[in-house]
């Protein structure tokens, strides 16, 4: 299997870099932990929140049709909250990635790309 070719990047990564060594390093494992501990629970949360909305719109129509004020009902508010949660999660992720992921990723990248020259 070692003869398998793969897409070689134009920026040409260091041929001698030991990817497995980096993968085992404490810093990389910390980066992976930070990424996964944010994106996996967040994905589960927004999927559950969306499915709750879909199921309510399908099976709890009486409740969704309750007027809250004027002609605005629970269903419309619930739907608009899906927009709010989507925008909110986007903002949270950007903030998290900028402060917790990018600095570590950039540091590792610099080590890998310079270490070989």
């Amino acid at each position, binding site marked *: *299997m*070692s003869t*398998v*070719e*793969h*897409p070689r*990047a*134009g*920026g040409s*990564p*260091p041929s001698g*870099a030991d*990817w*497995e060594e*980096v*993968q085992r390093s404490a810093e*990389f494992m910390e*980066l*992976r932990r930070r*990424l*996964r501990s*944010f*994106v996996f629970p967040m*994905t589960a949360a*927004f*999927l559950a929140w*969306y*499915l709750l*909305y*879909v*199921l309510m*719109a*399908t099976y709890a*129509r009486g409740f*969704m*049709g309750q007027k809250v*004020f*004027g*002609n*605005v*009902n629970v*269903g*419309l508010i619930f*739907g608009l909250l*899906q*927009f709010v949660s*989507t*925008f909110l*999660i*986007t903002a949270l*992720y*950007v903030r998290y*990635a900028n402060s917790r992921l*990018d600095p570590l*990723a*950039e540091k*590792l*990248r610099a080590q*890998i*790309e310079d270490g070989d020259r």
Partner: protein
Amino acid sequence: MTINLAQAPSVGEPLINLSIFLLFVAITLVIVFRASRSSRTASDYYAAGRAFTGPQNGIAISGDYLSAASFLGIAGAIAISGYDGFLYSIGFLVAWLVALLLVAELLRNTGRFTMGDVLSFRMRQRPVRAAAATSTLAVSFFYLLAQMAGAGGLVALLLDVQSKTGQAGVIAGVGALMVLYVLVGGMRGTTWVQIIKAVLLITGAIVMTVWVAGKFSVNLSSLLGDAAADSGKGDAVLNPGLLYGKDTIGKIDFVSLSLALVLGTAGLPHILMRFYTVPSAKEARRSVVWAIGVIGLFYLLTLVLGYGAAALVGPKNIAAAPGGQNSAAPLLAFELGGELLLGFISAVAFATILAVVAGLVITASASFAHDVYANVIKEGQIAADAEVRVARITAVVIGALSIVGGIVANGQNIAFLVALAFAVAASANLPTILYSLFWRRFNTSGALWSIYGGLTTCVVLIVFSPAVSGKPSSMFKTLDFDLFPLANPGLVSIPVSFLLGYLGTVLSREPAAEAKYAEMEVRALTGAGSEKADAH
């Protein structure tokens, strides 16, 4: 006023609609030809030299994603069926979180031009690339056919071309123009067409929304009240249930559709390919953030436009107009701003088809040339410019096929093709992408099982569904082989594909490529060795 509208064979002045559209074509052609001057290498043709910024690419993604179905279709669905049209649009938006959190950046860091680059990274190249290309071509072709078939109806509505021959002529013209964009401008030209279209679309939608809001003194409640009063259905248009899920099967079918929408977007090959047009993973992230902003804003505007059309034009007049439900937004434009605004909105609708179809054609041609021709047939032994030549030829072939397909499918009820494209993307592509990026043990056999298994399950279930036969609304009304009750296969095919990917992996004796996974994971997370932007 509105009554005259409904009785007229067409609305507005076709000549004005046509002139505004031709102006759009002229401007975009100039830009595409200018873009072509710096379009030489493979990275130029497939990925626009990776030189677009995140915001530019985010707007282009919106232009690629907001098809005529979501512009005319969702506004019309809200106007006629109320709340359920809005419900449909939410799945299209929430889906972007999958792309943002799990796919965009990691894909940008590990691939070059296609989805196949990422899926085959640590697998045996030829079988996995062939599978990735098969699924890419299938999704793109279903999506293309739906767009081209819709073009016929749009022509009838906006240019008052009633004869089938006339419509066929226009479909051929639109198709030829789109191929020209792709051939001349490559990804750079296509991206600019999508950016211009997205800006026009959002501008048009904002103008109409502000206008509607003004008519109702910026009072959402009174807009909803008028829409409900004019609908003839009362408050039912404000509640879920008019369009989807009248019975038990219908309800399950809707849940199935919702699942495919939310998981399908991040598996659409023409969307994935857009992430390669930016210089870094960080710019890919910014692209998605911008796309979420623009697409979210657009669907909020559509809510006002849909109910606005119901209140100001009336569902009966919309249903009676040529183009039926799809005419809601154009009729509202005419009601608000007369022939000129209608002409503008009509031109935007055309531009929408052009931009979406161009994006699909370049994706399909890239997948064939890069995955099938260069890596499967030639086993990587091919010069880049030869590969791009093959991509250009493929674009012409796919363009011709979609013109023929669009003419044949004109007037057919093939709306299920879009649902099918999303179902295949969610079933065949997304599980394979996620396993590739996150599961150490995943191997070639697992990838093949989940791609081919997901694709086959979707297509087989659709063929035996009521979308194809057995119902008055089916494609073949007189035949009856609808053995599977749901028109949307996602609820079954998505879990099946995840399961097959797992089983294919654990049941095969092939060891996981540990070293390649280490390289893939480190590159995905750090961006080390990822493709840089071209220096020009």
